[in-house]
């Protein structure tokens, strides 16, 4: 296991300085196809990708390009047909919440549990004592602006609040890797930008490795250190962009505008193809 906060322990920091960082996630020649009654649809083909520790990587692609499938395979929810996924050096077989936490577009809060109890779910499964997990959950809901909402049920929360509870629930696992599948996709533009700012704050504090899937250019430019663009079905990796702009980013500055144009050039044909094939 990789130490979670290397800066606290000089000895641990020493080892990290001596040893080059191994990638947190390695995806090798991954392929996946969906078999339906009358046809086989290739979803992913020849995907290879590495993600360094504490990197914020965004996977950008048109809808239906298999980016969600890719994330589900990395998270161990779906087995690949070919190729392999290594998470912190080990071949992944099934979900491993101690290493990987996931957030989805549909927050999937348990409606019979309060916000606090939802955040506690993963800890409950790990056998953390009730008082301790309550404390952890409270500590996570407060900084996301949900103080006073701990005992509300999901139906009493707004879309943005629900997604923040879902993210708090994922953060409660304290895993080094966070996979996010269009987490703000269902939110309105303003809430989306605010949630992006908020996520950057979380990322700066926790220094997690994040793989973020989106189809929003704006979101990708705002958040990422690196952006990979995927082709339309079957999904392949088409291009990769390093984003070295300082935070907080001016989304209307000349660099951001140039990057947006470059991303759009890559993704336009793919979106068009996706549109024409009726996805």
């Amino acid at each position, binding site marked *: 296991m990789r130490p979670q906060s290397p800066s606290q322990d000089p000895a641990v920091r020493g080892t990290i300085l001596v040893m080059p960082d191994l990638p947190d996630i390695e995806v090798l020649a991954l392929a996946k196809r969906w078999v339906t009654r009358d046809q086989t649809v290739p979803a992913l083909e020849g995907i290879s990708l590495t993600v360094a520790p504490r990197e914020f990587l965004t996977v950008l692609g048109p809808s239906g390009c298999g980016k969600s499938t890719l994330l589900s395979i990395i*998270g161990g*929810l779906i087995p690949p047909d070919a190729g392999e996924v290594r998470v912190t050096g080990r071949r992944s077989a099934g*979900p*491993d*919440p*101690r290493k*990987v*936490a*996931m957030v*989805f577009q*549909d927050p*999937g809060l*348990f*409606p*019979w*549990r309060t916000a606090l109890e939802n955040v506690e*779910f*993963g800890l*409950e*499964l*790990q056998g953390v004592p009730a008082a301790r997990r309550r404390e952890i959950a409270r500590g996570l809901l407060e900084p996301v602006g949900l103080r006073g909402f701990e005992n509300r049920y999901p139906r009493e929360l707004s879309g943005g609040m629900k997604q923040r509870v*879902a993210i708090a*629930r994922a953060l409660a*696992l304290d895993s080094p890797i966070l996979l996010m599948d269009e987490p703000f996709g269902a939110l309105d533009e303003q809430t989306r930008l605010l949630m992006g700012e908020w996520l950057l704050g979380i990322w700066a504090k926790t220094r997690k490795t994040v793989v973020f899937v989106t189809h929003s250019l704006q979101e990708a430019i705002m958040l990422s250190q690196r952006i990979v663009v995927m082709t339309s079905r079957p999904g392949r990796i088409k291009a990769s962009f390093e984003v070295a702009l300082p935070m907080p980013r001016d989304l209307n500055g000349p660099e951001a505008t140039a990057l947006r144009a470059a991303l759009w050039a890559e993704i336009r044909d793919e979106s068009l193809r996706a549109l024409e094939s009726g996805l």
Partner: protein
Amino acid sequence: MRVLGTRVGLLLLVLGAWELWAGRQDPLLYIPPSKVLPALVRVLRLEAYPTLPEHLWLTLVEVLVAYALAVGVGLGLGFLLGLPRHVGEIYEPILAGLYAIPSVVWYPSLMLFFGLGPASKIAFGFLLGFFPVVLAVLTGIRSVDRQLLTVARALGAGRGTCFVKVILPAMTGTLLAGLRAGLALTVVGVIVGEILGARAGLGYLINYAYGFLRTAEYAALAMVALTLVMAIDGVAALAEGRARRWAG
């Protein structure tokens, strides 16, 4: 208060109309409320049917046994068919189809199999109560939001944990409604079974009074049956409320 007043008023109105109308009909067939009341008193004082408590007790026992079987088999079969993916989809139309057949058609064969005693009543009560339970389990499992299961798996839940912590709580509402409907139908099944052919039980008494044209006593016994059904449903409603609070 106003609702209660309206209800009492409506009841008095119906009773009054019944009294006026029945008074002009054949007294052997049409009984006014003023004659039912004394009959009810005679029935409750055990003057008309001294063995009424035994009959009531028998009916209650038949209901309880039939319901226990309906719940046990209904839950067992429901989860057996519903939890493996696709299996429930295969069997549900068959079960729903069987459920749609008027159950009374099965009763003669049940009497042939189980005789005139309590066993055939229990079998019929079971048959009626079983379907709502098993169908509620199948519907309940199918209606569980798949996203909740995906999320639970990502958080580290295995199959067993998913069942206990996601599927069961998510289907509580549907399941409880099915259990309650099953109980109501079990009671109906047992009493109908007794009316159709028995040597004891509340339904038997009702059929007996009716057969001898003791119409006032028949009406009084029907009211006893009504009270029994309402009492059982009241207990069920109480249990359902508790279960819902427990499940959150």
